[in-house]
């Protein structure tokens, strides 16, 4: 079966969960056998893992004819895409896009690969490029990851008539706590209407899609995310804890959706009773300064630490030195990071308003606003060794069973259903 996938992020140059999930899911699907996957991203860097799929860069796909020889093309984009693909794509340009400003020397549109100010413009450009890609090689099904790629998916469906599966990794309702951006909402709704089937990463998200976007429940299926098994390099990382105090860690974007202020308040409650605990907020975000001020206002700045954005290995070094991991998200479509914490044996506390709470048992679950329950849970893990040991061991056992192969198989089954194959 051939699948054409549209994504926005791909490891190692990721900004959030979308890239991690895209990678894990496609790898899981590839390992189920019999899958031929082409994955489109705006801006590949060349160091992506291509062992199980083919990557096409939107910024390497020409929308206007330019004549260059092989060596030149190879020198320009050879590190991230096969030059032959460039020529094949060039043969399928379907309209004259020369009017577009900022086309580069290869006749391609530039993409940032991130979430810039002109995001909507980039999304539109992406869907134009999708028209070339969709015409170039045959495939059976189109799969669009997250709202940024829905217009591209729709365009591909319009051209080829192949079924479209969209993957809702998050909705604007989660990101904005109800205050949706009308343009984003319109794109999301359009994608859902055009889709032949909708995959959501949790029942929570599925409910949002059904209720807030008024979609028929039969068209929506939940396929829970999973987590990649830890690599030997990560296994080998030594924890660098240089304090006897217990460390409670929050690791994620410091933004409203992640509920950082509840963490600070809970820390204050814990520190009013116990002394030997330290709290770490790892990450950066628009609310970071506000949190620094809040910690100071509560008088706990001496035991509350901010690390800034952590990359790659640093994440695991931080996790391994932690005694408790906490994710008090206000609305989390899934949340892969608690699974990563549990993989390295860190007892976790998560909010009931997160998608991963639906599939995890060996974690402590609390409502994000219940600061007392959060503080009590933190106290319990750092004070009662039986609780710490139980969550650490049983948590790891549980997470080791949550593998992408299972999710991958579910997606393939959905493809078959949509294609009418059995």
């Amino acid at each position: 079966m051939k699948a054409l996938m549209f994504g926005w992020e791909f490891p190692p140059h990721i900004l959030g969960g979308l890239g991690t999930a895209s990678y894990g899911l496609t790898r899981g699907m590839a390992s189920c056998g019999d899958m031929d996957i082409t994955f489109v991203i705006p801006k590949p860097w060349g160091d992506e893992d291509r062992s199980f799929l083919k990557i096409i860069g939107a910024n390497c796909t020409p929308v206007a004819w330019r004549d260059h020889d092989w060596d030149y093309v190879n020198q320009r984009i050879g590190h991230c895409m096969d030059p032959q693909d460039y020529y094949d794509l060039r043969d399928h340009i379907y309209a004259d896009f020369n009017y577009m400003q900022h086309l580069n020397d290869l006749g391609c549109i530039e993409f940032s690969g991130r979430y810039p100010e002109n995001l909507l413009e980039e999304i539109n450009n992406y869907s134009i490029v999708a028209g070339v890609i969709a015409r170039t090689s045959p495939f059976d099904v189109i799969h669009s990851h997250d709202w940024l790629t829905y217009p591209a998916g729709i365009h591909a469906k319009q051209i080829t008539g192949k079924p479209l599966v969209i993957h809702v990794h998050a909705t604007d309702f989660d990101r904005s706590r109800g205050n949706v951006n009308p343009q984003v909402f319109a794109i999301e709704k359009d994608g859902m209407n055009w889709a032949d089937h909708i995959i959501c990463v949790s029942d929570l998200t599925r409910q949002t899609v059904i209720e807030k976007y008024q979609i028929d429940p039969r068209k929506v299926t939940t396929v829970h995310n999973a987590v990649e098994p830890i690599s030997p390099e990560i296994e080998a990382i030594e924890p660098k804890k240089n304090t006897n105090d217990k460390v409670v860690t929050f690791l994620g974007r410091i933004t409203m959706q992640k509920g950082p202020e509840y963490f600070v308040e809970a820390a204050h409650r814990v520190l009013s009773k116990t002394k030997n605990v330290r709290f770490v907020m790892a990450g950066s975000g628009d609310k970071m300064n506000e949190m620094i001020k809040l910690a100071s206002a509560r008088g706990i700045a001496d035991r509350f630490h901010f690390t800034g954005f952590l990359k790659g290995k640093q994440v695991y070094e931080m996790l391994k030195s932690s005694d408790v991991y906490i994710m008090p998200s206000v609305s989390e479509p899934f949340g892969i990071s608690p699974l990563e914490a549990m993989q390295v044996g860190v007892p976790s506390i998560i909010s009931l308003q997160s998608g991963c709470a639906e599939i995890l048992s060996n974690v402590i679950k609390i409502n994000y606003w219940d600061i007392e329950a959060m503080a009590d849970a933190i106290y319990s893990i750092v004070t009662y060794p039986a609780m710490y040991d139980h969550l650490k061991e049983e948590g790891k056992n549980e997470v080791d069973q949550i593998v992408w192969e299972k999710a991958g198989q579910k997606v393939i089954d959905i493809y078959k259903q949509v294609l009418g194959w059995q």
Partner: protein
Amino acid sequence: MKTICFYFQIHQPFRLKRYRFFDIGCDHYYYDDFNNESIISRIAEHSYIPALQTISEMIAASNGKFKVAFSISGTALEQLEIYVPEVIEHLRNLAKTGCVEFLAETYAHSLSSLYDEAEFARQVQMHVNKIKNLFGLTPTVFRNTELIYSDEIGEMANRMGFKGMIAEGAKHILGWKSPNYVYSCGAAPKLKLLMRNFKFSDDISFRFSNQSWASYPLTADKYMDWLTETPENEKIVNLFMNFDTFGEMQSKESGIFDFLKALPQCAEIRDINFQTPSEVIKNNQAVDNIYVMHPMSWADEERDTSAWLGNRLQKDAAGKLYSISERVRLSHDRRLMQDWIYLQSSDHFYYMSTKHSSDGAVHSYFSPYDSPFDAFTNYMNVLGDFIDRVNAQYPDTIDNEELNALLTTIYNQDAKINQLESEIKKLKSGKKKAVNSGD
């Protein structure tokens, strides 16, 4: 002639209220009175009261041929006394009929038999005294919390002077043997054992209203036919279940009360009678010894102690609780002793079970907690405060033995002083008389 031996358990613990770690040191009252009151009032209304009335009628109608036994935990008795005293009245009336036997158990419905023999014996004595005070009867048959039984426990029961004990007719213990005989405890053969027939007991308590059960609907006639079909040599059928089967687990609408009422008649025409545990023990010989090395119970699929002590959390909590057992007994503070009893109820540990599947569902039925972790954290916080209070009684630099010796000396000296004082008084008044009469 076959005999049915009915035994009903009544137990409710003092459930804990939401107790956070910042309450430690400040709040010394641990119980959720509202929840406990609602639960016991509800169960009394749906189950205990109508069922007790039904049994009373059945005894009268059968001219005293219908007999049953009850085991009611101390914590349940206390809550009934406070919240639903009518139930105590009904039980008293039943006691007077002479057709109802009361069994002994641990006052707190606790796991003390597995941890601390002295505490175990103390609680059993407490319970026996309570039964005597309330109902005027002295128990001679013992049943341990949730039918937890082992050779050791049998020995302890024998030492305490009981004639018989109730146990679960678990497959892994009986093997090919049938529960429908009287057995004796291998480690102390004077103690007779009555083994629960779980198939017939659970037919009533679990399967009765299950419409997808092959034998649904169950009538008294059908049930009695099954009993007559058991092999001729098997003379007794031990039906042990929770008393709230009648009206709570099996609702009134399921017809459970009508089923119960019809039993004596259907039994009589098939030559089946009813006896209390003591009578069964008296009238039957033990056919064999039963040896149980590792404790068994009537709980969950495994029929062992894993329902309360299966995971790390449970073991840790119970271990911590009993680690201060001796220390608590050295204190004589009334509030402390009361809390000590209430904190020992096996239910607290039951709620911490992490078992899944159908067993898990049973565990969460009366649980006030959302998760076993919640149960553990809450209990440990309460325990933390309790232990602080116990330690505050006497400095913990003195160990238990020394403390015990010192306290004994102090009390003895106290008694000695009192005795000497009264002697002095006597002598003084004697001297006065002598002086007076001497002039």
